[in-house]
Each structure stands twice: as structure tokens, then as C-alpha cells.
């Protein structure tokens, strides 16, 4: 069997069980692929020794007949997850040198299932960004390329997306606060699932905006997303917002039958200036679901337009509070102090040196909208608008809609450095189709459906009902099969 690193989780699992390959061989294939993919800047901390040990343990487990679905599957972990003893710095200088003494629940669940840790993956600093440009490691690069330009793999889970698309690992973890799993998945032609808020524990995931953050799988196929979500999700007493629902068998929900389901097409997502290609793709996607026996219904989500400004109040407000812990005292970077500098100067210099420009901006915006006199005008108003956005979805589902179909992004992947950095709002507009879901706490999945005229991948996303990831994945499977997206980036790295 050649190119073990290009297998899907399901293919590798079946091959492992039949004894056609070993976890050790799968792991070596990935380590080799990673070593020759430095140009993608996807893996930022390598853990080959750990990978080989875990692969050995997985092979022993498989031989003993005690294998779970993820046993022996080599994965990459976004830098935002704490992994005991491994640098975990959310791509920020301020966490330089931080090696957690504890393990995130998500990674612990994956290791318990027998998955193999290949290393830490690039991302935007503290998951704040849509192009992976705000990383202290420099940007990850999209393996898709159509001319001389280097393209963004999207953000914030850009390293995860690049690594999966380039077959450096079988799958990767991501986190999604405003679209950070789905947008990079769409930009790289892979599948990205953001679960319902509370489905996956946030324990040990370096916090950005706690009421929005949710971890999920980034995979080559919908089936793999089902398998990996099953391993990542749990009911966790360590996270007070972890939902008290048992984790079902998501793969068993993949029947491929969506006859009689009602798919909503939200008219408010047809925004001004949307490229014709994206609109056409959306129509095609709706046609695919209709051909599979679903009913396509136009719906209205009237407050969609206000999701982006509400998000850019709420997320920075929560970030300003969460990131207050980086004070140069407990972990990471501390600035060199001058003669006579006291503790305030230590905080201010440490944070000025440790946080990049986008993080500083969001912390300051958050500080401003929470400050006396502006709290009601900005923060409370945004939380009220958030309630209305959620209500829009509640109404749609109460009217009998089973899933909602929309584009994932307003464009294909763009050139690194091509968005004017002096106008941060231009970058924020990337999240226009994705943030609504985080504000409403709902599950969503991006599926690669086509390519633009240059040949770059484009994705569509499906939104589902809370805690109905199985049903959502089943819709996604139908879309994936009908779209038949099999294109891979030509190797240039």
C-alpha cells in the first residue's frame, strides 16, 4: 500500500484491522511527509518521538483486539490545545516556552482512543484571524496554488487545514469561534465540522471567546468527521458548559438517506457583491440535495446582517477578559524591565511585546466595549442582537426545517498579505457566512463541493439542530457524494 499518509481515517482503520498496515508505518509515512513540507509551515512543533511511541502502543492494542476507531490514526493538533509537556502557545509570543502540566480533554480523549500525536499545528494568534497571518510562527501556506502567489489556507485553523489537505496527517483538530474550522476547510478542499456549543469540552483549550469557542474535527471526508467527532466529544465535569448528553455513534447515522428532509435556503445570505461562482455553487448544492429527495425551501433569517458586528463586540469583550491572565507572572514571556519599572510597567511592556497587533486590537476593543459608559451601548446591545439571531434559527427549525444550506465563504482562498491590514474590518468580512452559527451555538459543517474558474476549492456549509450532529453529518454525506469532489493540490512544496 503506497502513500499511507493520504488515506482517510476510515480507510486506515479498516487496513489496520485487516493487518494490511501498522500504526508504525502510517506514522512514518506522515512524519516523512511533514519533513518534506516545511514550505507549508503547517506543523510548528514536531513530536516524532511521542508519535513513534504512541504508534507502538497502538499496534500492541490492535494486536490485542482492543482497537477503537481512532487507534493508530496519526493526527495533528492545533497549537491552541494544551498537550502535556509539549509547547502549547496558541501561536502567541506571550506563551513562548509554555509547556502545559496538564492535558486538554479533547486530546486526552483522542489519546485514550489510541490516536497518534504528530505535532502542533499553526494557527492565527489566539485563534484571532481569518488568514493565519497573525501567527507568531509566520503564516501557514495553502497547498493549493494556481500562480506565483502563496495563498492563505484560511484561519484561524490554517495549519490544520493545510496539513490535512496536503496529506501530512490523516486528520487534525481545529477550533471554531467565528468560522475558524469551516472557512479554512473551504479554502483547502477538506471537511470541517463545528459541533454544537457544549458538545466538545473546552477544558485545556486556550480560550479566545468562551461563549463561542468550540473544538471540532478537520478531515478528508464526512465519514472521517463522524468518526473523529465521536472520539473528541464527551461529557466533561471539568467544563461547566459541557452538555450532559451521551455521545452517540455518529458514523451509524450516515445512512445516505435524506428523503423527505426540508432544507432551508436563507435569502439573507445572498449578499451584495457575492461572486457569481459562489451563487452558482450554492444553487448546484441545493439541486444535489433536491435530487436526493429533500425538499428545498426558501427561508428568512432576518437578523443575519447584524451577526458580524455583534460578533466583533462579543468576541473581543470575552477575549479582553480571557487574555487578562497573560501578565508575565504565571507563564510565558515577561518583558525585560527598566530601572524603576514597577508591576504596572511589567504588565504593559509584557503584553505589548507578547501580543501581536490583531490581538492587541481585539483586547483594546473588548476593553472599550466593556468600559463604564459603553457597556450598555455596545456589549449589552450586541448580546440582545445575539438573542435575536438565535431566535431566527429557532423559528426556522420550529417551522420544520431540518438543515440549512449556505456558502461557507464569500470567495476562494486569497493571496497571503493581500488584504489591507490598515483596515481590520476588511478581514472580518471573511466571516460573514460563518459567525451566525457560533452566535446561535449550532452545529455546522463545511463540505468541499466545487472549484472556481482558477481551480481553487469552494465549500458549502450545512447548519443543523442543536446536538443533532448525526443528522447534520448525514446531510453532509449526501452533499459530498453528489458533489464528488476528489481534486487534490498539485505538489509544489
Amino acid at each position, binding site marked *: 500500500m503506497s502513500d499511507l499518509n493520504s488515506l482517510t481515517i476510515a480507510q486506515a482503520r479498516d487496513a489496520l484491522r485487516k493487518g494490511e498496515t501498522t500504526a508504525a508505518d502510517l506514522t512514518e509515512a506522515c512524519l516523512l511527509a511533514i519533513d518534506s513540507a516545511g514550505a507549508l509551515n503547517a506543523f510548528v512543533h514536531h513530536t516524532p518521538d511521542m508519535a513513534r511511541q504512541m504508534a507502538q502502543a497502538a499496534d500492541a492494542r490492535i494486536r490485542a483486539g482492543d482497537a477503537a476507531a481512532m487507534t493508530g490514526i496519526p493526527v495533528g493538533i492545533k497549537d491552541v490545545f494544551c498537550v502535556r509537556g509539549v509547547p502549547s502557545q496558541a501561536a502567541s509570543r506571550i506563551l513562548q516556552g509554555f509547556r502545559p502540566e496538564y492535558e486538554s480533554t479533547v486530546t486526552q480523549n483522542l489519546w485514550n482512543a489510541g490516536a497518534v500525536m504528530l505535532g502542533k499545528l499553526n494557527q492565527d494568534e489566539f485563534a484571532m484571524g481569518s488568514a493565519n497571518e497573525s501567527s507568531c510562527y509566520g503564516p501557514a501556506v495553502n497547498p493549493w496554488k494556481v500562480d506565483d502567489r502563496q495563498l492563505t489556507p484560511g484561519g484561524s485553523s490554517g495549519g490544520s487545514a493545510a496539513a490535512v489537505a496536503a496529506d501530512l496527517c490523516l486528520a487534525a483538530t481545529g477550533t471554531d469561534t467565528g468560522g475558524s474550522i469551516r472557512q479554512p476547510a473551504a479554502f483547502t478542499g477538506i471537511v470541517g465540522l463545528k459541533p454544537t456549543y457544549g458538545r466538545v469540552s473546552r477544558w485545556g483549550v486556550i480560550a479566545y471567546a468562551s461563549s463561542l469557542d468550540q473544538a471540532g474535527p478537520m478531515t478528508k471526508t464526512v465519514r472521517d468527521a463522524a468518526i473523529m467527532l465521536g472520539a473528541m466529544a464527551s461529557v466533561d465535569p471539568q467544563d*461547566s458548559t459541557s452538555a450532559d448528553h451521551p455521545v452517540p455513534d455518529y458514523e451509524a447515522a450516515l445512512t445516505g438517506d435524506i428523503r423527505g428532509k426540508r432544507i432551508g435556503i436563507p435569502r439573507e445570505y445572498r449578499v451584495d457583491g457575492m461572486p457569481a461562482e459562489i451563487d452558482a455553487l450554492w444553487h448546484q448544492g441545493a439541486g444535489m440535495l433536491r435530487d436526493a429527495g429533500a425538499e428545498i425551501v426558501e427561508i428568512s433569517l432576518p437578523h443575519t446582517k447584524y451577526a458580524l*458586528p455583534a460578533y466583533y463586540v462579543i468576541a473581543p469583550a470575552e477575549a479582553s477578559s480571557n487574555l487578562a491572565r497573560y*501578565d508575565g507572572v504565571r507563564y510565558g514571556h515577561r518583558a525585560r524591565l527598566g530601572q524603576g519599572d*514597577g508591576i*504596572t*510597567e511589567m504588565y504593559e511592556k509584557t*503584553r505589548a511585546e507578547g501580543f501581536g497587533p490583531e490581538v492587541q486590537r481585539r483586547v483594546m476593543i473588548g476593553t472599550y466595549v466593556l468600559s463604564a459608559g459603553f457597556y450598555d451601548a455596545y456589549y449589552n*446591545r450586541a448580546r440582545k442582537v445575539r438573542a435575536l439571531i438565535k431566535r431566527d434559527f429557532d423559528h426556522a427549525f420550529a417551522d420544520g426545517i431540518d438543515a440549512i444550506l449556505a456558502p461557507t465563504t464569500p470567495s476562494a482562498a486569497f493571496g497571503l498579505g493581500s488584504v489591507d491590514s490598515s483596515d481590520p474590518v476588511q478581514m472580518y468580512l471573511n466571516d460573514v457566512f460563518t459567525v451566525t452559527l457560533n452566535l446561535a451555538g449550532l452545529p455546522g459543517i463545511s463540505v468541499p463541493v466545487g472549484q472556481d474558474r482558477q481551480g481553487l476549492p469552494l465549500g458549502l456549509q450545512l447548519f443543523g439542530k442543536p446536538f443533532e450532529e448525526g443528522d447534520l453529518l448525514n446531510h453532509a454525506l449526501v452533499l459530498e457524494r453528489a458533489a464528488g469532489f476528489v481534486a487534490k493540490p498539485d505538489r509544489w512544496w
Partner: protein
Amino acid sequence: MSITEDQARKVAHLARIAVDDAALPALSRELNGILHFMEQLNEVDVSGVEPMTGVIPMRLRRREDVVTTGEMADKILSNAPDAREGFFAVPKVVE
């Protein structure tokens, strides 16, 4: 509403981020751009709407009020930039 350079300085201080005076004009311009974008929220009729506190309706779980962990000062201090004799060390706070 718009942010003057003085207000930008004040926000930076509240956020405990050192900003050079020379950087204040660009900072206030960026912050104003973002705040202007947020002002769309004023178009929405929010009368009678409660601000959302939790997106998934759930009661905060409770647990037994017992000690579940502790006795790990070394681990907690292991990542500190400066730790001495079992404590975090910081510059002098009281004159």
C-alpha cells in the same frame, strides 16, 4: 461615538498594553473603523429583548463541595518566568 487619541491612550492603559505616543493616531483610526462598523447594531429594535447569557439552555451543573485536587505547587510554578521559594516573584509592588 469616536475615539480620540487621548481615549485610545486610556483604553490601552486599561488593557495594560504599552502603546507609544507615536502609534496613537493609527490606533485610534483603527479602533474608530471597528466601532463605526459596530454601529450598525443601532438599527436593530431590541426593545423587550433580554441580553443572551448562555446559548444552550442548561442549568449549571453542580458537584459535591469537596476538595478534588491540589498539592501541586511545583507544577503550577513550573512555567513561571520567575519563581522563588514556592512563590511567583514580581517586581516590588509596595514602596
